[in-house]
């Protein structure tokens, strides 16, 4: 199984450090407007949701790209923009149903999460609460299943 950024929303405190770490590493400055991972804060609901590219198996962005600039690596499964080939046409931006690829004006290229290439993902390294992890197994999913299982188990008591 390939490693992915796993997200456990219940652990998020809405500090946006992931956005800062991402933009600092990849854009050279602290600029949430240029991040590849998004931490949204819903003040009223006390809800903090983080999303990023999930490196689709059959990526819409890659399919749509007319210049073959987006490739999915066979080993890691990472979907990456080859900047030399990107012509900045923004077709991928329209194609991605999740909004996880964007056009970045200063470099006139498409830009998306590549799990930091050969480095450990910077957002995960700086996440202060363990909301973000970089793992082969989807631990947050496993925890949800266990919660469900435990609820069923509780219901079985005394039967």
């Amino acid at each position, binding site marked *: 199984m390939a490693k992915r950024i796993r997200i456990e929303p219940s652990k998020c405190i809405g*500090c946006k*450090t992931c956005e800062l770490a991402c933009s600092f590493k990849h*854009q050279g*400055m602290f600029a949430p*407007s240029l991040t590849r991972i998004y931490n949204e804060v819903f003040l009223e609901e*006390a809800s*903090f949701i983080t999303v990023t590219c999930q490196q689709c198996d059959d990526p819409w962005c890659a399919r749509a790209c007319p210049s073959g600039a987006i490739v999915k690596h066979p080993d890691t499964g990472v979907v990456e923009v080859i900047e030399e080939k990107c012509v900045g046409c923004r077709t991928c931006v329209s194609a991605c149903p999740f909004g996880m690829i964007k056009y970045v004006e200063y470099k006139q290229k498409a830009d998306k999460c590549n799990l930091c290439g050969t480095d450990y993902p910077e957002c995960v390294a700086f996440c*202060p609460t363990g909301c973000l992890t970089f793992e082969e197994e989807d631990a947050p999913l496993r925890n949800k299943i266990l919660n469900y299982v435990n609820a069923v188990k509780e219901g079985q008591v005394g039967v």
Partner: protein
Amino acid sequence: MLNGWIGNVLRINLTKMTYAFEPLNYEWAKLYLGGRGLASKYFYEEVDPKVDPFSQDNKLILSPGPLTGTYGAANGRYMMITKSPLTGTIASSNSGGYFPAELKYAGIDLMIIEGKAPHPVYITIYNNQVAIKDASKIWGKNSDEVEDYIHSVFHRDAKVASIGKAGEKQVLFAAIMNDKHRAAGRSGVGAVMGSKNLKAIAVRGTLGVKVADRLKFREAATDAFRAIKESPVTNAGLPAYGTAVLVNVINKNGLLPTRNFQDDVFEDAEKISGETLAKTLLVRNKACMSCMIGCARVTKLVDPRYKAQTGEGPEYETIFALGSDCGVSDLNAITKANYLCNEYGMDPISAGATVACAMEMYEKGIIPQSDIGMPLKFGDADALVKMIELIGKREGFGDKLALGSYRLAESYSHPEFSMTVKKQEFPAYDGRVAQGMALEYATSNRGACHVRGYMISPEIMGVPEKLDPHSTENKAFWTKAFQDVTAVVDSVGMCLFTTFAININHITNLFTSATGLDYSVDDMMKAGERIYNLERLFNLKAGIDPSQDTLPKRLLEEPVKQGPAQGMVAKLSILLPEYYKERGWGSDGIPTQEKLKELNIA
């Protein structure tokens, strides 16, 4: 080329309804860092210290620091600088949330607001596009409503700072709220904003903050981050219980002010503790921009007396002011009163402490019931909630309470019942018990305050080392050091709470790698001292003479009645001369020419 700072000052003149960008004065930035320091320098140069705080000649400066908008150590703060209508001193009030960083992302280091708008307005900023707009639709609304309105008419992702009714009506301790529930709470900065007919400031920024040396900055940030994650205060106590973790700690040490400082041990502390809060009202904890602590409390209040509501708070200071200081042990009522303070936009410390002062004067028969319109006894939770509401609206007796406890007590010819320094109410630690804190209260540049030199940290919590709270020994040295380092923290744009875990070395490393200035730790401490002295100079010129570096009679003469510190008073007559000497000031408390020259002020 210097980084960290963007290099822009946005100046808005509300009288003329005009705005202009001007280059940041980097010479001043090098001396005064940013945030509280740099804004104070601009304020000192541009505003007559004798100005009436509500006149259009008073200014309001919003100032993030060079680190605001970066990461590493909760670098998401800004300062509001103005002349305080409550104290008459220079006021700097701090807040976090997301608004301060957004100012930087819009390319703004300082925003100077001058004049007075002819009618209620709000300001919108989208990078370098600035507009001053009619606020008649949101005048009278609270911060939640204002923010929702601005999101709908301006930009969904705009960050908003605004005043509520209390600011509009110039309650002398009105706050400026941002991101709905964060507050630049103290010293009445919201009242100044209200006096300028300015309801809100909305900002959306899509630019970025650059640092001079990326590798070094990342290293410095990693060091700070690790230290914060390793400290039991910043990694366990504050995230789990928020600042309210202190209720039991401070009560056990016998300095939780109770019933307007008549007592120092609150018999019902457990009922209003952070632990109880976590078990009952807490929904989850929440952080400001770039913060790994997450001390904010998101709470849900379900009580048949009130409408069901989610909000933020109460913090420790609030629990003291609306709780023990008023003798109230009803955590739901305290939380409701806290929500009301947020909605009206006012400082819960001064609000609660003023009610506490009124309660004592009512019980002593100084304030007749006919003036208040109802009984106002210690411990009466419903009366507390009612009073907070009346203050926010400035209705009935609330109109008198809205002037703070000093003016209230003075109007009944008993100023000694006001627990204030320079007319600002004490926060939640009795200075009779922690002698360093007493000194900090007496000498703080914005009146009684805990976040100008938090001596509780060494005296009670043992950070960075344990001092005996009851002793006066070395307290002048420590208080000065804490005041100076706090001035640095407030100026670079960091949160003070990180300093439970990190020290001036971390801060210096972050600052130098961000800005590119080759400053030593001594240079940074010198800057802190410079800032402190500049504020002092402003206050002296404003007519706040050193005779006001004092404490209420109760703290100086009435011994603590119970607890581990029973019998103690604040030994200010020992502490103050030592402090003046430590500061290199004359024995009259006035900075000497040599000192000012040494600090490059004169």
